[in-house]
């Protein structure tokens, strides 16, 4: 289409051969980007003037957070532990449920195309729903408290681990599987001895990685009433208790950093 509007430039080489050089797409891409930016600026009331006059306020808030209010830590401890427990439980159950989902969604294991399509669609629909929205719905069904948070994290882990796992299963070397079937193993036995060893390290490492992310997510779920430190963040910002917010953020940064270090150690061992 583009080539028809702007015909390629013909270049005569010294050897007498004519080559066509395609016109650059850059102007078109730039035009689209500029148009999208202008439209977005109008839709979002973006204004540099407000930004430059008011940005000091943002750094003012950060300034109030330092130094953090150390004696708010005991009150924070319980919420932090419950955040960790929520993400652990949600990640573990989610990763376990992801196993059957991923197997049923891989086209090289399940012969029925309909089953594969249905499970793939379920996984991608679950993945599009933002965790906070799932948590919000879960608070209506399971009541306020960590249970709703666990459900939200579980669903996210299921969709994330499930998708990566079925991609791995679809990409494994099917040779051993076929060889084992041909010497008389059942499909389940062949799956256990040919596919599982190939995808297990990847699966464990994805689950760990997902757990790392879930700790961050779990920290905000409390905002909609699903347990954890989120509620504290909401209350303290509401009361403009910025030093306490600083303490929460510091505690979160340290926790997330520790968990990432531990999980990275195990993930390196796995691969």
């Amino acid at each position, binding site marked *: 289409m583009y080539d028809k509007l702007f015909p390629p430039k013909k270049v005569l080489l010294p050897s007498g051969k004519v080559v066509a050089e395609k016109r650059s797409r850059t102007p078109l891409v730039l035009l689209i980007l500029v148009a999208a930016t202008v439209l977005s600026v109008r839709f979002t009331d973006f204004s540099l003037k407000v930004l430059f006059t008011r940005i000091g306020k943002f750094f003012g808030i950060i300034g109030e957070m330092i130094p953090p209010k150390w004696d708010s830590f005991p009150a924070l401890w319980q919420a932090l*532990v419950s955040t960790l*427990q929520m993400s652990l439980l949600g990640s*573990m159950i989610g990763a376990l449920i992801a196993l059957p989902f991923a197997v049923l969604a891989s086209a090289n294991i399940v012969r029925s195309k309909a089953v594969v399509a249905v499970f793939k669609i379920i996984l991608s629909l679950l993945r*599009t729903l933002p965790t906070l929205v799932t948590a919000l*719905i879960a608070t209506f069904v399971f009541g306020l408290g960590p249970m709703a948070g*666990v459900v939200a994290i579980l669903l996210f882990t299921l969709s994330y681990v499930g998708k990566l796992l079925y991609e791995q299963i679809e990409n494994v070397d099917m040779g051993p599987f076929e060889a084992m079937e041909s010497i008389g193993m059942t499909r389940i036995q062949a799956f256990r001895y040919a596919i599982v060893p190939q995808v297990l390290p990847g699966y464990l490492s994805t689950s760990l990685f997902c757990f790392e992310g879930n700790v*961050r997510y779990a920290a905000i779920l409390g905002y909609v009433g699903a347990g954890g430190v989120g509620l504290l963040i909401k209350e303290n910002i509401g009361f403009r208790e910025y030093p306490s917010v600083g303490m929460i953020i510091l505690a979160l*940064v340290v926790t997330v950093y520790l968990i990432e270090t531990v999980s990275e150690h195990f993930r390196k061992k796995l691969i």
Partner: protein
Amino acid sequence: MTTVEKQLLASPRNLRYLLTVAILVLGLFAWSLTAVNFADVNKGGLQISFNIIKGIVNPDLDLLLNVSKQSVLYLLVQTLAIAFMGTIVGAVLSVPLAFLAASNIVPKPAAWLTRLLLIVIRTIPALVYGLMFIRVSGPGPFAGVLTIGITSVGMLAKLYVDAIEELDTRVLESMTSIGCTTFEKIRYGIFPQLLSVFLSVTIYRFDMNMREASILGLVGAGGVGAPLIFAMNSYKWNQVGSLLIGLVVLILLIELLSNKLRGKLIKG
């Protein structure tokens, strides 16, 4: 003894290690079970989940299809605009930070300090930024743009740094040897190497920002989140249904588009 048996015996025995890990994991599982209190579960939970499903199956078509300022369509376009603008702000801020954090460009201590800053930026949840920016610019989509911008910086800068540190310096050396100026070296040696990676990472982040932008409305930072939470709190499940359907369709579309674009970029 056949070769196969020898190989089997020679394989490392890590039963004790595996057992320890398994016991640890089970212990953690049991410990985290204590967080959940089944007594909290609503008695009417089943009824409510039934209502939610009914609402999603029968969405409020009027809300979904008209084009006023309250409609789903307008809110979705606004969410899209927030995500787009936020990605641009984030990308612009990330480039200098990424160069400052690349250990092959600046001295080690400076790079390490910038990295520390990036880790802190990345760990603070988006909602906290959202609540802070509302104090700066007032509630509305502009606060959403700033929030998305700063949350993008954490991830974008980190991935940009990886690209910068993997720069192929042999190209630059050969350009020096044929007498290129510094500007030419940047334009023809560095720029082409970085551009496709930067663009691909940025498009990926735009895809993620769509999801972030949709939840920011919960704190009043524009987009589809605020109407969603209002509709839920007043139990208007068919409005919730139409908002969710619109959101899911939009996110799926953006994901498809982004995968396609990135595929093209990587193939060249």
